[in-house]
């Protein structure tokens, strides 16, 4: 039995300990905001926050999560009011939107560490998150807008 906390709620997992967190979130818990994109930690669509760090849920197995706290897009804010979510909407960032939960979670972890990120900080933090629609310049702008609100 693996005990972990997801979006501030306790969960007990007794399935395959080698299963990635992604599939526990999506198939078992119905938290489908976290997306499957590559299954290999290459695209960032499945990004969640584990104990303050952005991680790829497709590449973190359940056995590595005992006692850990996980936050998904569904738990980032009560009503979509996180400064990043507001900034994302204000800048009309999403096109298809499929990667955007991962982008927002990655950016949330960045702002925790660097409340006023430089362009270089944004590049380094966000380069693991692919957007095939090409919304990158709006992602950059939205992170800067959110940083102003946080600061």
């Amino acid at each position, binding site marked *: 039995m693996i005990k972990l906390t997801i979006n501030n709620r306790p969960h007990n997992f007794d399935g395959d300990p080698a299963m990635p967190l992604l599939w526990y979130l999506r198939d078992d818990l119905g938290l489908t905001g976290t997306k*499957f994109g590559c299954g*290999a930690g290459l695209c960032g669509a499945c990004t969640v926050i584990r104990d303050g760090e952005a991680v790829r849920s497709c590449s973190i197995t359940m056995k590595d999560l005992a006692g850990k706290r996980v936050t998904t897009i*569904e738990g980032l804010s009560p009503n979509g009011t996180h400064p990043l979510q507001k900034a994302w909407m204000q800048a009309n960032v999403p096109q298809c*939107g499929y990667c*955007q*939960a991962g982008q927002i979670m990655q950016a949330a972890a960045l702002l925790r560490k660097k409340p006023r990120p430089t362009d270089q900080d944004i590049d380094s933090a966000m*380069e693991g998150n692919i957007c*095939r629609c*090409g919304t990158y310049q709006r992602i*950059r702008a939205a992170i800067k807008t959110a940083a102003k609100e946080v600061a």
Partner: protein
Amino acid sequence: MSSVTNISRRGFLDGIFSAGAFVLAAQVLPKNAWGQTQEYAGKAAAAAFHPSIYLGIEPDGTVYIVTHRSEMGTGIRTTLPMVAADELEADWKRVRVEQGIGDKNYGDQNTDGSKSIRGFFTAFREAGASARVMLTSAAAAQWNVPATECKAQLHQIIHTPSGRKYGYGELVAAAAKLPVPKPETLQFKPKSEWRYIGEHAPNAQQIVDLADICTGKAIYGMDVKRDGMLYASIEHPPVMGGKVRSLDDKAALQVKGVHQTMTIDTFKPPYAFQPLGGVAVIADSTWSAFQGRKQLKIEWEDGPNAAYDSEQYKQQLLDTAKKPGKVVRNAGDVDAAFASGAKVIEASYYVPLLAHATMEPPVAVAEYRDGKVTAWAPTQNPQAVQDTVAKAMNLKPEDVICHVTLLGGGFGRKSKPDYVAEAALISKQTGKPVKVVWSREDDIRFDYYHAVSGMYHKAAIGANGMPTAWLQRSVFPSISAMNDASSMYGFDVEYGMGLNDLPFDIPNHRAENGAAQTHIRIGWFRSVANIYHVFSALSFADELAHAAGRDPLEYQLAMLGPGKVLDLKSQGVANYWNYGEPYEKYPFDTKRLRRVLEIAAEKSGWGKRKPGNGWGIGVAAARSFTSYVASVVEVEVDANGRIRIPQVHQVVDAGLIVNPERARAQFEGAAVMGASLALSGEVSVADGRVRQSNFHDFPVARINQAPRQTDVHIVESDELPGGVGEPGVPPIAPAFANAIFAATGKRIRELPFSKQKLV
């Protein structure tokens, strides 16, 4: 042209409208833009009643607008309803957008070809205007005043002299009984009163799914779940057309959660939209299905395509391009010009296979019950889902219901519903709802690839440095092989994308298409054949400019000559495709192309900084999907050959643009996709097997590689609406290559650039 019908009491669309609603349906003549949609368009035209739009108002005033186009990131699910809402003078807060299912009654639903606004702007406008007129008449009748004294304003009809008002909901019952005004009597709102649409809309709206996307609530195909649903993952034949020779699934069946395996028959040629075949592992979770699949032991019978090697094939294409091919355009006498002793310049170009790599891999849920299938799919083409599933299972198309979810990217891949047919077949076998999930590896290895192509250009140069003769040859495996396995040549759709409609004003001009066999699935990819035709032609134009010692932008303008409507018929182009549009309505007007180039020069500060020392600027302009685009790309190349793109300018004349905010987003994204395919896009094949499998070996542009800033400049225009989803892609790769030449003196004639040594 469309016609609007009052269907308030005809019982359509159960579940969306209540019995008391006022519902209008607007019918559009079906589009016939793509070869393969003729079948659907024909059936739609034959149907007695085939509205493309439903607009209804409930007694509580809620306006429902059914959108029948798929949302893959263009914003179309919001933009078309905005057109109807604007004409209706509806309050957007009281508008609900419903997604239509696949239904031939809608007319064309294949969301591709950048044609949703071109095809349906008028119909949505007429639907909204008709409802407004009927509500106004209903109010006027109740007050017993002339309708001319009444006006519609933000969900109310107001009697202007007295100030009396009715809300739309209060008028529903009366309006539903009125005849629909004849289209020719409809008066549209003047542009100055547009509320939601156009460049100066005071109440422009954001996409309806925005908040759901930013909070993780939006439902894509990947997110659909049905009670009792099983999950399947499929091992496809590694070579197209291959078959299962033997299967050992013992180890797979021992994986926890795996229920069973199922062999899916390989398609019978032509491949069309049929499943590839292979072995499905069916389990109670995605993870178990994936794990079980790793334990399959399959021997394949590869078939003839096992000999396909992309390096050899590349040489064949380039060799073929050096020989005469099928003539698709011919004006003057290029051979005489080449023989005249003029200076001759020639060059070959190459673009490899490309994968779409939508962020959401192909996925579908299907539920077979009692001879009927219900599917939930991220599809651009729900009617093709109906037909493909029906054909695979010996059903009638109307026995297949296709719900359209949001698409996690489409780019043309999701017009082909092979993956939905897989889910339906497995559901029938298991008796349960089934979700088929393609892995990223499946997606990269088993795509309908953007065609590889070899091009050859030759020009004779006159005394002033301008070309007197232009020969352009293109060789590529044609999309037409999808429906005709013996096809060796392209067809009008591919020719009409930069091969037979190059706008340069050159007296002797010939375009040819060489023969090529197809060994892998080929399909349309955002902007299609424009990618390779515009890359080679606009790179070659740049080569000629440099050979003449002239400024490349000024030279491109000179090559266009005085602005005019192209007369392609007189140049031996018998059937110019023109993106499915009548030429009188959408002529190819080089004045508009000149104008976007001139604006690009101004906005980019062209000519102000001298290229060289690792900095360069390049330009290319093209018309595609009836829109005119000039792209300027600035590059920096450092001492290690690393490329950065600090700035892109996209100048766009797409006629009337309904949703400029989303149009800008499309052109920003197109700059990224164009840069991505130029920089690093390549799928290669050995022994008939695709070598790449995921984003490590099929890289796409990331935030640190994408253009740092793309400025989109929209030419305000009252011309008919053109496409916006695709036209931003084609000029990027040549503008980029031209910029690299300006920066480094190195001419890149093959994509991707990452394979070239720049220093």
